[in-house]
């Protein structure tokens, strides 16, 4: 329910009360006549009780026909009508109707007290008592109104004019019916009070029932008008008790509204899945603390991460921390300016904790993903670095030593020409060994890729058995991981060219270009590719955050290299 509707109802209730108070004021002006002397306090108490009751009704929201709010409305109507009876500005007809309406007070209060917090009692006896109260008060009240003549009534003190609703006036019968009515009210109220108070349910209702029952008993036991002191005391007791009932009703309504509002907000939040860090931002705005940060522990580690999974920054100077704990383990650490500690603690309700917990899980997941990706990248980089080291070792070690042997053989042959013929086959073997070593070293890591970069390294692949053309390649040097991945894909893909009709391999073409921070490789003219090979490309490129897509004789690969 919208706040506007609630405040609208409250305003309406206040307006009704103000107008009724104005109507009731002439009662105070009757004081000098000595008939009755209700003080301003008495009137104020009545007004306050009715206002509280109506506010309670207004806040209770749409309660349905049998809700406590409806009953509260009937109680309030009874109270207002009771105050209006005999108001000098009311015509006789109005006064009679007001008396009839004022009868609502007791049965409505009894039902409300017995049924709280619902609108209809749960127990059979209570239901029976409720129905009996409504029946007795309704039947006897109507009967009394039908024969009542206020002018002839000795107990009448105010507005004792005519009763236009009377069918046949009979003061004696009216007096007896009034007594019966008071007996019925007293019995109903006191029985309800006993039931309510013994079961410790709606104690304000129970107390009000006691007061109304006592009121009825006092009136029953008094012949003629009540003494003024007694009348004022009873009136004040009634007002007080009903004010408490109204307050209880208002409190219940307010609690319900707040819960409803929280649920609506939470539902709205849950409806749109928030981006990481949303809660941190809203908390920052709410507290006006731009330094506020929420960090989350990564399970199994001492580290803390922010909502997007990045490592959390250290706590700054002059900052305080608030730790959210669930069953002994920290859920989140909020760092903030020290003066906001109290406001922060107050704002961390169950919904906030749920949002934070949700963000914590997202942050942990993101952190794990980041770590996994970094780990894959490190594995690939480490592998490349290791191959490069091997190639260098081979180049600077074994290859040089074999070269040295060749040089020494050459010198020996020159020094003694008679040995030359015998040494020739050995020198050829040494040359072959060098060729083979060179191929092995190149296979481990192409030195040209490291020294001259991708275009030269790709261009050299055309020396192989498959016709190969590089259409385009960026001259700019790229991260070694990206260069290595592209070279690796192209060099291995060249082992699987598309066969032509003559059985010769078709030409494979490669195009590499850098669009923004993404390196694109396009290969055309490929034949059937073994699944493990494609998988190895996907692993290598995936480790660098890129993707490979093979379709037919073509391959597309995108690699971030910012």
């Amino acid at each position: 329910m919208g706040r506007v509707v609630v405040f609208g109802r409250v305003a309406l209730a206040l307006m009704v009360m103000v107008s009724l108070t104005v109507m009731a004021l002439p009662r105070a002006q009757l004081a000098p006549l000595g008939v009755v002397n209700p003080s301003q306090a008495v009137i104020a108490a009545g007004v306050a009780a009715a206002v509280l009751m109506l506010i309670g009704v207004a806040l209770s929201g749409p309660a349905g026909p049998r809700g406590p709010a409806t009953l509260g409305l009937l109680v309030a109507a009874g109270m207002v009508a009771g105050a209006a009876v005999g108001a000098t500005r009311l015509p006789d007809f109005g006064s009679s109707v007001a008396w009839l309406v004022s009868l609502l007070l007791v049965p409505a209060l009894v039902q409300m007290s017995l049924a709280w917090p619902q609108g209809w009692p749960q127990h059979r006896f209570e239901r029976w008592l409720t129905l009996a109260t409504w029946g007795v008060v309704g039947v006897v009240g109507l009967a009394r109104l039908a024969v009542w003549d206020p002018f002839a009534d000795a107990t009448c003190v105010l507005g004792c004019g005519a009763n236009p609703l009377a069918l046949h006036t009979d003061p004696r019968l009216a007096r007896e019916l009034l007594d019966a009515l008071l007996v019925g009210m007293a019995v109903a109220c006191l029985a309800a009070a006993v039931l309510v108070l013994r079961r410790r349910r709606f104690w304000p209702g129970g107390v009000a029932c006691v007061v109304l029952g006592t009121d009825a008993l006092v009136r029953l036991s008094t012949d003629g008008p009540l003494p003024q002191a007694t009348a004022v005391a009873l009136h004040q007791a009634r007002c007080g008790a009903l004010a408490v009932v109204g307050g209880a009703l208002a409190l219940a309504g307010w609690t319900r509204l707040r819960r409803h509002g929280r649920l609506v907000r939470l539902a709205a939040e849950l409806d749109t899945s928030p981006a990481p860090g949303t809660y941190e931002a809203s908390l920052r705005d709410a507290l006006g603390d731009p330094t506020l940060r929420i960090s989350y522990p990564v399970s199994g580690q001492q580290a803390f991460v922010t909502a997007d999974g990045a490592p959390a920054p250290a706590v700054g100077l002059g900052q305080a921390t608030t730790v959210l704990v669930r069953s002994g383990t920290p859920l989140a650490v909020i760092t903030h300016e020290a003066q906001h500690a109290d406001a922060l603690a107050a704002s961390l309700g169950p919904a906030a904790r749920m949002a934070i917990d949700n963000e914590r899980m997202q942050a942990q997941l993101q952190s794990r993903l980041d770590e996994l990706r970094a780990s894959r990248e490190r594995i690939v980089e480490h592998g490349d670095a290791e191959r490069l080291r091997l190639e260098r070792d081979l180049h600077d070690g074994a290859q040089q030593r074999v070269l040295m042997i060749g040089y020494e053989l050459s010198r020996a042959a020159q020094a003694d020409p008679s040995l030359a013929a015998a040494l020739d086959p050995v020198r050829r073997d040494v040359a072959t060994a060098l060729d083979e070593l060179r191929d092995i070293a190149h296979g481990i890591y192409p030195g040209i890729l490291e020294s001259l970069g991708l275009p030269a390294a790709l261009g050299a692949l055309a020396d192989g058995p498959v016709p190969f053309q590089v259409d385009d390649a960026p001259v700019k040097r790229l991260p070694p991981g990206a260069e290595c991945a592209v070279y690796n894909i192209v060099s291995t893909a060249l082992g699987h060219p598309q066969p032509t009709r003559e059985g010769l391999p078709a030409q494979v073409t490669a195009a590499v270009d850098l669009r923004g921070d993404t390196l694109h490789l396009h290969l055309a003219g490929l034949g059937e590719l073994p699944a493990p090979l494609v998988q190895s490309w996907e692993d290598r490129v995936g480790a660098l955050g890129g993707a490979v897509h093979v379709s037919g004789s073509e391959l597309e690969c995108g690699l971030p290299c910012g």
Partner: protein
Amino acid sequence: MRAAMRVVVAEDVLLTRAGIVRLLTDAGVDVVGEADDVDSLMRQVRVQAPDIVISDIRMPPTHRDEGLVAAARIQREHPGTGILILSQYVESDYAMQLLRDHPGGVGYLLKDRVFDIATVIDALRRIADDECVIDPTIIRRLLARPRPAHDPMDSLTSREREVLALVAEGRSNEGVAEALFITPRTVEAHVSEIFTRLNLEPGTNRRVMAVLAYLKSPGHSDSPKR
């Protein structure tokens, strides 16, 4: 007989450097300095003013292309100094990069070419004569590249291919004639025919570069100019 050539040898692996130096000395070359990185090489060049610098490609600190970088510096700071790169790498791009910077007076040989010291001495002479020298193994690999159908290379006779290979190695017409035991005029006719067929600019003074570039880029299926 000319005066002995004065060379500086740059090579970071001591064993290899010693081997090369001994072979060169045996063959009558005057090794006036040795270096194991770019800085010491530049110092030697400044102090000794050699005819030719013989250098490895990979040297400290990065072991990437220090030899080529040093060659560019030497050409800039000491023009007229010949460069012979001795390398383990058969990829033509290294040689091409060298040629791109210096049209003459440079050479690129594989280290095992030194087994036949006569080849090295011949290369040093040609570099001193401002010719260029490319290792035959590299040219053989380029010529052996698979080519698409109808490539103009297919129309060359085997003698023309021989001439083409020698031209690519950096030999002059006289050099080609000497190697194939034919007259320089015949070589001239072959070269002219080859260049026409391959659609290359004849008479260029950078003909080695032109031929290498041709051999490196496949897909010349257009009919040549006649």
